[in-house]
């Protein structure tokens, strides 16, 4: 059973970084991607740092060759402190998907964004 909480106005979320909000006493980063808005808990499962305040960027694709295929631009957030890379859509840590930060459903009503907790 989730409850809908107002997060922020949609136009407050920049393209290339998270909008940090506090909802239901939780720090949450709201991201704008091409397919819409996404929300992650702003706490890194590694050491509790402000995960969503890190750079939104891409990463290199895993490959069997010595090559640097830059991939997924804008879909990854690196934790502000130690640089662990997380998938913005799933909250999963790229090195070990079993490690993840909590993600939240998000809905848009008019110009308002709501996080479902």
């Amino acid at each position, binding site marked *: 059973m989730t409850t809908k909480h107002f997060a922020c106005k949609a136009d407050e979320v920049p393209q290339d970084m998270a909008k940090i909000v506090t909802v239901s006493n939780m720090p949450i980063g709201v991201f704008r991607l091409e397919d819409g808005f996404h929300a992650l808990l702003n706490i890194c499962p590694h050491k509790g740092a402000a995960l969503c305040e890190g750079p939104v960027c891409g990463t290199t694709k895993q490959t069997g060759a010595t090559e640097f295929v830059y991939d997924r631009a804008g879909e990854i957030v690196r934790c502000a*402190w130690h*640089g662990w890379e997380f998938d913005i859509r799933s909250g999963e840590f790229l090195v070990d998907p079993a490690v993840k930060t909590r993600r939240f459903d998000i809905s848009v009503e008019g110009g308002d964004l709501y996080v479902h907790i």
Partner: protein
Amino acid sequence: MFIVDCDCHNYWCSATVLEPYMEGLFKDMFIRGERTGPRGAFPHGHRPWFHPEGFARHDVNPVEEGDNYLIMKEKHLDKYNIDVAILTGDEPIEASTLANPYYANALCKAYNDYMIDYWLPKDDRFWGSIVVAPQDPHLAAAEIRRAGGHPRVVQVLVSHGASRPYGDPFYHPIYEACAEMGLPFAMHLGGQGGINSTPIGAGPSTFFWETHAILPQTAMTHMASLIANGVFEKWPSLKVVVIECGVAWVPSVLWRLDANYKALRKETPWLKRLPSEYFKDHFRFSTQPLEQPENIQHLWAALEAMDGENTLMFASDYPHWDYDDVNKLHVPPAWREKIFGLNALDVYTRLPRAAAQAAE
């Protein structure tokens, strides 16, 4: 709990803050001379490894010089109730990479004056490290005697990247001065490149993260060298602080040193005790970054083998990319008070003990 952060980096937005503290030839060199980085960078022989994301935390973004302190205060000192922050500068330890020891020394002097002038008065929690350029130990010793008398200076700081191992008699004037001034000698990870030997025994490694992980190699060399060359017999009061070089390797090197010394004591007849005994009395290691094994017991076994309860001191490395949060230090609970603050009081003897008692 009384918390001493033994590695708190005071940043600047631009090294031009040193201009007022320089004069003559070296001021000209500083203003118009060739630089390794963009304008505003500190001159140094640059390391071969580049951090692909930069060194600072991405939630620390100073715009004006004043922001450096304000952000540190908000995001670190106040947030975690740090009682004492030992300022460790940042770029200045890279002065050790310059071939010109006179310029390197002038840069260190300017930094020390700037640090004492600009940083120490900002906050009662600040205590300073003076930086010296060890490539000329006599100039370094003179600087220790010049700036080391300031009552809020608590240690002498160099990079762990060096031209030769720190126990070498070449460096002994530095320890003479440290002992005279009652200051510990600290080495912080850094200072690779320029005239300094590669920290990697087999030749340069390739990637930044790979290199950062194996930088303890250099600290191993310095630790063995300081012990073997009898530095602690010559200066029995001297303490050496090793900052940001990892710790879990320490027991294995001590085991090897003790075993080899037992077999070949005759090579170093000036030593009176086992290497591990010198270690316990004279070396202190900063926690950051503590190794992170899957099974924390594996780390704790290593810490126990190096008498970590007494040899470790808490450090955050604010605001660097491998910053350690006060609340996430994985050490045995019974050791916390010592590691977080009390051990530091024994090393940094200028810190007032009353502050610790008040915090209890």
